[in-house]
């Protein structure tokens, strides 16, 4: 019984990380309509900035988090200006190729400048945990979960309760219509894409504390984030949290209760995505 509850907790904690990475991507895909293959690379930038702050300046990653978020927002906005903006009207495939090239560029730039080594950050709270009897809740992962819920909540509020959010939704639904009623579409896109990158960086900071920073750190998470937002349904923010929890917990259950489950958990993760998409398509929802 203890093992079962601990397994649920383990799954829930892991899902926080998934949701955090997915939230930014959901914004890019939902509002800007860009399938950003380079999303994981902004996560990587965030992780490296956190590492650099900690290693060279001695600043705790969580303290530098707001600064990093702003910095990567700027990088994202710049990316939008020089590249994304010019393919908004191009076919989806062209956008994919562009962001894919961007991903190669950023990843190899990091590799060239920093080498392929894995780097870790040292913080006093890294291994902190809350003990409830035999149950253990890891501190930084719980923080990631809380942060994911908070950010998704904040995104929801922004999208549905503010003028900027209404503009974003309007642009997402009908670009030309939005333009006609006087919305500065370009500015909305710029902000949405920048925020999306900033969110990836926030996830990256957490990843640097929890795991490590390396040029390829983004890949694993970006792939899963894609699967999650698609499973949630494009543009569905609350769905991102549910999909993450569902996937995180089922992964944990497989890893704990299936012999050799660690090898199968990926299959289960993607099988669930596959199954959901296919079932939904045949039920006619899409």
């Amino acid at each position, binding site marked *: 019984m203890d093992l079962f509850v601990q397994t649920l907790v383990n799954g829930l904690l892991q899902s926080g990380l998934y949701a955090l990475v997915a939230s930014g991507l959901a914004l890019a895909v939902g509002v800007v309509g860009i399938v950003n293959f380079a999303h994981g690379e902004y996560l990587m930038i965030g992780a490296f900035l956190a590492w650099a702050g900690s290693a060279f300046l001695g600043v705790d990653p969580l303290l530098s988090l707001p600064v990093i978020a702003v910095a990567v927002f700027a990088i994202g906005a710049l990316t939008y200006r020089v590249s994304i903006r010019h393919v908004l009207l191009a*076919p*989806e495939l062209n956008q994919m190729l562009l962001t894919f090239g961007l991903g*190669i560029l950023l990843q*190899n730039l990091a590799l060239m400048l920093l080498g392929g080594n894995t780097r870790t950050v040292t913080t006093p709270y890294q291994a902190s945990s809350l003990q409830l009897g035999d149950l253990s809740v890891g501190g930084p992962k719980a923080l990631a979960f809380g942060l994911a819920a908070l950010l998704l909540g904040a995104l929801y509020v922004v999208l549905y309760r503010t003028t900027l959010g209404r503009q974003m939704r309007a642009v997402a639904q009908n670009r030309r219509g939005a333009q006609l009623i006087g919305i500065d579409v370009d500015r909305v896109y710029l902000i949405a894409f920048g925020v999306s990158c900033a969110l990836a960086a926030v996830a990256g900071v957490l990843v640097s504390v929890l795991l490590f920073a390396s040029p390829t750190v983004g890949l694993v998470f970006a792939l899963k984030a894609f699967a999650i937002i698609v499973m949630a349904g494009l543009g569905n923010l609350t769905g991102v949290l549910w999909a993450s929890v569902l996937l995180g917990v089922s992964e944990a259950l497989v890893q704990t209760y299936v012999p050799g489950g660690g090898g199968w958990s990926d299959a289960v993760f993607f099988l669930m995505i596959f199954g959901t998409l296919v079932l939904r398509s045949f039920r006619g929802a899409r």
Partner: protein
Amino acid sequence: MSARQAEAGAPVRAAPRREITPGAALPLLGFLLLAALFPFLPLGSRAEFLLQIAFFTLVAGIMALSWDILARSGQVSLAHAAFYGLGAYGYALLLKAGLPWLLAMPVAALLAGGVSLILGAVTMRLSGMYFAIATLAFTEVVRTIIQNLPESVAGGATGLLVPALLGGNSRAQYALAWGLLAFTVLVSLAVRLTRLHFAFAAIRQGEETARVLGVSIVRFKLLAFFISSSLAALAGVLYAGKTFFINPLETFSLANSIAPLTTSIFGGLYTTLGPVLGATVLRVAEELLHNSVKDGYLVVYGLVLMLSILWLPRGLMGLRRNRKHGGDL
């Protein structure tokens, strides 16, 4: 589909329809001829090395062109690595079972094609991003299954040794790869020049339209899947026989699904020459960069991809379209 997406898809659809003249086939024929003569060119001491590069370029060409055939029916797949891998594994296991290689090759291709029919049938109603992620998920599932089967079955995570193709003779291997590329080109032309072209294009441009036109969507989508996946499997066979070793992590890697996609877009979508030319140009560019930039050549490579899509939205084939001539093949 939102209004913006519809708008975004417009430029490709609006491509003017022109009559196909025999002249349109000339560049393609020229390319194949040059490729056929390549081993006999007086390249001096570099001949052997360039032949090796050319071999892998042909494999990349087969991958890209076969992916493009599927894309013509509106199915943007990220499962090409799965069929490439299934071809490689099918071939290796059939050889292990005692089949001669000449038989193992087509059987592996047909087996992969058969699996693709299942995937195609199940993902029939998905489109766009949903289809792409479903096919990506499929690839991951296939990889995990092969990786977790007992080692005695398919080598597990460690991988399988594969006997050398054609006794390791690099010229014979090249000739075989050329033959398979030529075959892929023929299949692609067959799709382009028969009523399949109109069926695929109709489905791509909107299934509603296709239905109204009386196109059997199910049948054509599955046919596209079967053709495309069998050809990708042949590329996998070439890779396995050339590198003697396959393992799940490398053969089923996402990179093998993405490369044909980027190559086709770079070369020119929905054409026969485009993907093949794209594979060649990208490989040559990579090699040149590798030799001139050394460290960080992939940074420049990424930049080249980005710039090409900003300046050449229709890929290399877009360069030709500006001139006056017949329809593209």
